[in-house]
Structure formats: C-alpha cells, structure tokens
C-alpha cells in the first residue's frame, strides 16, 4: 500500500526475523488487502484467493531469513504470484473460476454506495472486466494485475516476476490491448472516449 514506506517494512522485517510475531503481524496488516485482491483477480475465487494469501504469509514467515536485505513488498508478492501459478497447475486449466456467491459475501470497502440501478450497471461492467482479465494468459494477467490492481511500479513488477523492465512494459501493454478489445465489444457500457477528455488531463 502506498502508505507503507519501505523503511518501515525493513524495520518490521528485521524485528520479525528475530522471531517478533507482532512485527510480522503488522506486515500482514499492511499487505493482506493488496495481496488478497491480487490473488482474487488472478484466480477468481474468494476462497482460493484467501488460501493463497494465507499460505503466502505462512511461507514468508518461515522463510524470512532468506530475504536478507531485500525489500519485503516484491518478495511477498512473488511468493503469492507463484502460489497462483501452482493453483493454475493444480487446476490443470488456466482460466480462472467464476466468482461464486456474489451477493452473499461481497463486502464493499471504502467505496461510495451507488443507487441500485447504478450498482447493477457497475456490477455488469465489473463482470466484463473480470472476464477480460480471466481471458488473458497468466503472464499477461500477472503483469496487468500487479500494475492496475495493485499499482506496483514497473521496477517492482520486474522484481516480482524476475524479468527485465522491457518484458514488464511489453506484457502490461499487450494485456491492456487485449482487455481493451474485449471491452469495446460492449460499447453501451464502455463508451468510446472523446478526445477532449484526454487533453484536459494533459494540460
């Protein structure tokens, strides 16, 4: 998360490596929401995403000594991304499972609550975006999610997936291109942008 400076992480990691569980719990607090949401967008199922996040924290705790002086954030994401790939292999399929039980456990956090009609349309938009992401191959999906769901910088993503910056840049662009193609199939929900929208941003 943006408000978790690397220096803080490093201090917490140092304490946790001495066996300080409280320090590690603070790291869990910092990263549980981004990590869970990364896994959720990767695998599509809330239960599986929660399993992956839990397992990632357990592995991180146990292997904390191998981290040496490296930053915690890309490391914990790397562990969780690898678990997502394990999940795909176990499933022997790459497509994510549809999210189940929408109404039952959806919890909106930190979001304005729109009226029911808006909510229905937003729900439909979200479903199409999720489907588009699920249609990506895992490498592209990972790059897109780390960038546009988690907001990681290219350098951080490069550290997570252990690939050069050029690869990161190219995967993000290709993933966005594929998603864009899918979204344009639903012009009533994703209107084509007008030119001045962009100029306003640029000036």
């Amino acid at each position, binding site marked *: 998360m943006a408000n978790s400076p690397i220096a803080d992480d490093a201090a917490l990691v140092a304490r946790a490596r001495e066996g300080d569980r409280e320090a590690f719990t603070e790291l*869990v607090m910092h990263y549980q929401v981004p990590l869970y949401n990364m896994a959720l967008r990767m695998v599509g199922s809330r239960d599986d995403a929660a399993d992956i996040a*839990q397992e990632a924290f357990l592995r991180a705790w146990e292997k904390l000594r191998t981290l040496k002086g490296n930053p915690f954030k890309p490391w914990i994401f790397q562990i969780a991304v690898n678990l997502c790939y394990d999940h795909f292999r176990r499933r022997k399929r790459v497509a994510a499972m549809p999210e189940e039980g929408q109404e039952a456990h959806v919890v909106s956090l930190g979001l304005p*609550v729109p009226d029911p009609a808006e909510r229905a349309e937003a729900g439909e938009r979200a479903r199409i975006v999720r489907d588009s992401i699920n249609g990506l191959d895992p490498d592209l999906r990972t790059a897109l999610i780390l960038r546009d769901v988690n907001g990681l*910088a290219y350098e951080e993503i490069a550290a997570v997936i252990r690939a050069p910056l050029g690869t990161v840049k190219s995967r993000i662009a290709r993933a966005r291109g594929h998603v864009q193609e899918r979204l344009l199939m639903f012009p009533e929900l*994703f209107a084509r942008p007008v*030119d001045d929208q962009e100029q306003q941003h640029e000036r």
Partner: protein
Amino acid sequence: MNAEPELEDLSAYLDQELTGTARQQLEAHLQTCETCRRRLAALRQTVSAVQALPTEAPPRVFTIPPQRQQRTGAPGWAWAGGALAAACLLVVVTTIGLANLPHGGGMATTNAPASRYQGGADRGPTMTVTDPQDLSKQLTISSGSTAFSADQGTTTGSQAAAPLAASKNQPLQVGLILQGVPGDGVPANLTDAHVRLTLLRDGYEVALANPDTFSAARENGAVRITATFRVGSPPLPSPAAGNYVLRVTWQVPDGSGVSLVAQVPVTVAN
C-alpha cells in the same frame, strides 16, 4: 518521431514510465496526431475500467499459528481464527456464517472468535469491516438471532436450531458499533448516525423503517447502537419466508465520502 508510436510506448507513457527522449518524442507526436491521441484516450479508459474493480475485504483473518516456527518446515497448517493474542485489534474482516447464504436453508450459528464485541445483541452472527484507508474507522453489525417469523404465531418447525421462539412480537435485534466517530455526540436515531439498514433477498431490497426501540451510547471512542424492529412490519416480498441479508451502510461522517458496508444473515420463517 516519424513512425507511429507503439502500443508499448503509449502504455508506459500512461504509467509515467516513459522517460527522457522517448517521452519528449511521444509528446511531440501526440500534439500533431489525433489518431494517437484517441489511441491514448482509449487505453486510458481501459486502465480506468480495470482500476475500477472494487477492492474487496479478505473473508478471513490471516494468522500465523504459534506452532509455526521460522526456518522449520513443519508440514500442515490450519486456519487459526483468533489465534493471535492481539487478533481483536487486527481484524479487518470477520465473516461469520455468511458462506451458506443465500443458497441453502441452513444457517450458521457460529459466534465470532476472539471478538471484543460482547454487547447484548451479539448472540447471532457478527461482521466487522475496517476502512483500509483509515484503520481507525470500523463498523460492526450483529443480530440478536438469525431466525424470525414473518407472521402471527406460527412456529418454526423447520428451523429447529433457531434460538428464539417465533411470534409476531419477536423483535429483530440489531447491534451496531461505529468506531472512529469524532466528537462526543450521541446520535438520536439511525439517520443521525448516518446509518442505513436494509434487508435484501435476491436483489430485492427493503429499507427498514424506524425501529421500535433505539438506544445509543458512547464507549471508548465508539458509538454503540442497539435497535429493534418488528419483522412483520417491513413490506417483505411474497412469500416473506426465506433467507435474507441484513445490511448496514455507514456513511463515515468525516467528509471522505467513504461508506462502510457490513452484513449478516437473517432467516425469516413461516
């Protein structure tokens, strides 16, 4: 730049990851090329659509069981809800018994582990959500029981586990804890507390009317509210019996525009 920019460059430009000459060349090209301005705008809209996916709260509390030691590879781990001593302070979301809703008729009756919320209305399911942007803001809802009768005097034969006898006078008791309300005022009613309570089933939504009883108090920086409703009074869809979700929406009164939403299952029996 004579050649048209690649998708890669437009994409990196959006992310502020294009630097130096490459960036200058792209900006110069955009000045003169409407097609590329449109490409960029379309890409920006795609990114916004992905970014607009809601951030969801984890359905469980992530803990490291005490027996898990560093450096050892002890096999097998289990969820340990509330195993941490400080878990009650660290709970982002505790979801109890929501997993079966609204598909099955069975209701979970588990109580929240390690909950510090031991008010009078928490015999039934409880849920707590925290604003991830501001951990001091927290909303808890609990219901006094999970099963009620919608009509007069009918017993709930199929709801043997229901903790309360069903009658039209059986109140639906709701407990709310609003953590992080500035000042020391005590709300006089739900509206005053910026709280909205609704019953939902299959997308059908009923806003609960004024409660029969309402009480609020301040305690440790939180506002605690207990309210009771007659289940027979709201205009429930027909047939009224079934599994509902009791949802609370709290518009956090700090000008952030943030609403926290929590919900617990409620069964209305015939």
